[in-house]
């Protein structure tokens, strides 16, 4: 067995190795944990990067864990979408990890630092595993790893409000995990399989008396994953958890973890059930139109709630609720254009939102302030971080030439193509509200006289401003050079819709 044959599983195995040994490294030297975690993420990033060519050459790369043939064993199955997710996860995690170096020593008790990096590696590997697995129960296990890790990460500072937010998150998260497990068991009871393509094939030839069970399973999946994704009416846990967590953790949770819920819905809809699954042909239309309306309402509701926030991190968290709506709306359009818009917004929001949370963290690091009105005149004292905030805001709002604009352009194009003009109104209204909440902060940063902050305030250390700047430039880069990945995303959408 050569190393290249085991390449797909290394994406999970390498960070798991690094995570398992991180506390040991911490016993030797606490300061070394950061470099250890950085090495783990970097090696995984390199492996992911070398995988891109292989996946585009063969459409899907498979690996049977332990040599068990599917449908009996766990199969790792990396398709276009999986590799796109893995690249987004490694890229954003890498930059956030660099930021953690100074932030963690500032915000955390020293004895917790090794555990912080261990949890960081665990959440990282679980998200990658979730994106690349082809086995539905394995997907559940990875989902539980990143869920439990994120409860712990939210509470890692031990602050009063953070612990409360973590518990609230845990109650919602654990309940939604159970609905997903229940759905898996229903699906297993009628198909007798856990491998996604195999379930899909077996559903096609299933006895019609089993149909209601499959339909109930689908309903449980949708409810469970929309809680994980914090879609509007089920978003109750998100604002507290994402704003009370330490800022790098907020960045990971908001940029990546809630996307996993959407990714789960994608997998269930397209890989497991398959749109062509005739048994539910009548219900599909209803389900998708209900979901797309909920998503459209989420866009406006999340943005409207963000406008009224006085706390910067709460504002950014509510903005995530709005953006999950965009992504889900794109997916529910079921056209290559709309789905491409959804996927592209996934990337644009991951970069932009990570940047916003990191900048919010930089303000907390320097000044300890969270209220938007306390940010007056900071743009002159912290030009790079404040500039990164402004640049990332352009992408969140969707102003050309940012990545957010490309995503919204495709979403609008997709809805026009479907003749659903109402969604265009919702998308544009969401952008308008985003402009209100983002540019209010930019206004305070750059266009008001400084009267609050102490005179000694200056720019944060380079390991903190550089990730913010790179993420912000990333939103610009993927706006200007959207041609680099749009064709692959269109292929991904076509392969899913097939």
């Amino acid at each position: 067995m050569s190393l290249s044959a085991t390449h797909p599983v290394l994406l999970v195995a390498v960070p798991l190795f690094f995570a398992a040994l991180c506390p040991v490294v911490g016993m030797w030297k606490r300061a070394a944990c950061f470099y250890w975690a950085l090495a783990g993420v970097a090696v995984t990033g390199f492996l992911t990067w070398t995988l891109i060519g292989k996946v585009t050459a063969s459409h899907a790369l498979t690996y049977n864990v332990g040599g068990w043939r599917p449908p009996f064993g766990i199969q790792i199955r990396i398709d276009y979408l999986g590799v796109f997710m893995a690249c987004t996860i490694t890229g954003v995690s890498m930059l956030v990890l660099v930021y953690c170096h100074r932030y963690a020593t500032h915000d955390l008790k020293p004895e917790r630092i090794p555990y912080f990096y261990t949890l960081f590696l665990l959440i990282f590997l679980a998200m990658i595993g979730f994106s690349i697995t082809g086995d539905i129960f394995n997907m559940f296990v990875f989902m539980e790893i990143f869920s439990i890790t994120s409860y712990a990460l939210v509470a890692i500072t031990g602050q009063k409000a953070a612990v409360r937010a973590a518990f609230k998150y845990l109650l919602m998260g654990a309940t939604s995990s159970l609905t997903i497990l229940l759905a898996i068991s229903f699906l297993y009871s009628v198909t007798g399989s856990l491998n996604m393509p195999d379930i899909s094939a077996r559903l096609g030839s299933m006895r019609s008396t089993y149909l209601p069970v499959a339909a109930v399973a689908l309903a449980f999946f949708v409810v469970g994953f929309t809680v994980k994704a914090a879609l509007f009416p089920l978003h109750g846990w998100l604002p507290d958890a994402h704003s009370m967590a330490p800022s790098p953790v907020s960045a990971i949770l908001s940029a990546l973890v809630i996307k996993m819920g959407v990714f789960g819905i994608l997998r269930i809809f397209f890989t497991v059930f398959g749109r062509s699954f005739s048994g539910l042909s009548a219900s599909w239309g209803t389900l998708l139109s209900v979901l797309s309306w909920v998503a459209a309402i989420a866009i406006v509701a999340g943005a409207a709630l963000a406008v009224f926030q006085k706390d910067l991190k709460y504002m950014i968290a509510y903005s995530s609720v709005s953006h999950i709506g965009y992504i889900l709306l794109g997916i529910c359009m079921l056209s290559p254009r709309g789905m491409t818009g959804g996927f592209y917004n996934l990337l644009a929001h991951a970069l932009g939102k990570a940047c916003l949370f990191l900048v919010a963290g930089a303000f907390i690091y320097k000044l300890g302030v969270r209220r938007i009105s306390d940010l007056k005149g900071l743009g002159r004292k912290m030009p790079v971080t404040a500039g990164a905030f402004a640049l990332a805001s352009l992408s969140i709002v969707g102003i050309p030439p940012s990545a957010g604009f490309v995503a919204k352009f495709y979403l609008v194009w997709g809805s026009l193509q479907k003749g659903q003009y109402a969604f265009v109104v919702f998308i544009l209204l969401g952008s308008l509200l985003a402009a209100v909440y983002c540019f209010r902060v930019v206004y305070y940063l750059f266009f008001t006289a400084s009267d609050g902050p102490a005179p000694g305030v200056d720019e944060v250390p380079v390991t903190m401003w550089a990730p913010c700047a790179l993420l912000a430039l990333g939103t610009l880069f993927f706006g200007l050079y959207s041609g680099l990945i749009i064709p692959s995303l269109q292929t991904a959408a076509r392969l899913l819709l097939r």
Partner: protein
Amino acid sequence: MSFSRIVNNFNYVFSALLFLMGLYTVAVKPNLIKKLIGLNIMETSVFLLIVSLGMVGGGEAPIVEAGVKTANIVNPIPQALILTGIVVAVSTTAVALSLCIRIHQKYGTLEAGAILGREVDV
């Protein structure tokens, strides 16, 4: 739906009842520990459902040797799933209980109303 069908599938009926009991406890009971107990009841109900899926009346353990009729063995996969599920449930409960300890230290109570009602302080 005849009565006998419900009686014959009592395992499904009981796991549904347990799931609803657990969900009710999580949603309604104000005490955080009671909420966790509810969560565990829900987990148990799902495990009960999955493990009973693999049950074969009068079946044998799935160890295939010479002389064992392969037609009458219990499905081992649900049991393996549940072992994993129990590990997951224990981890969730462990994290939740440690959060409870911290909440009790910070707020001096475990009643949801008293904790959620307070102003957010940073």
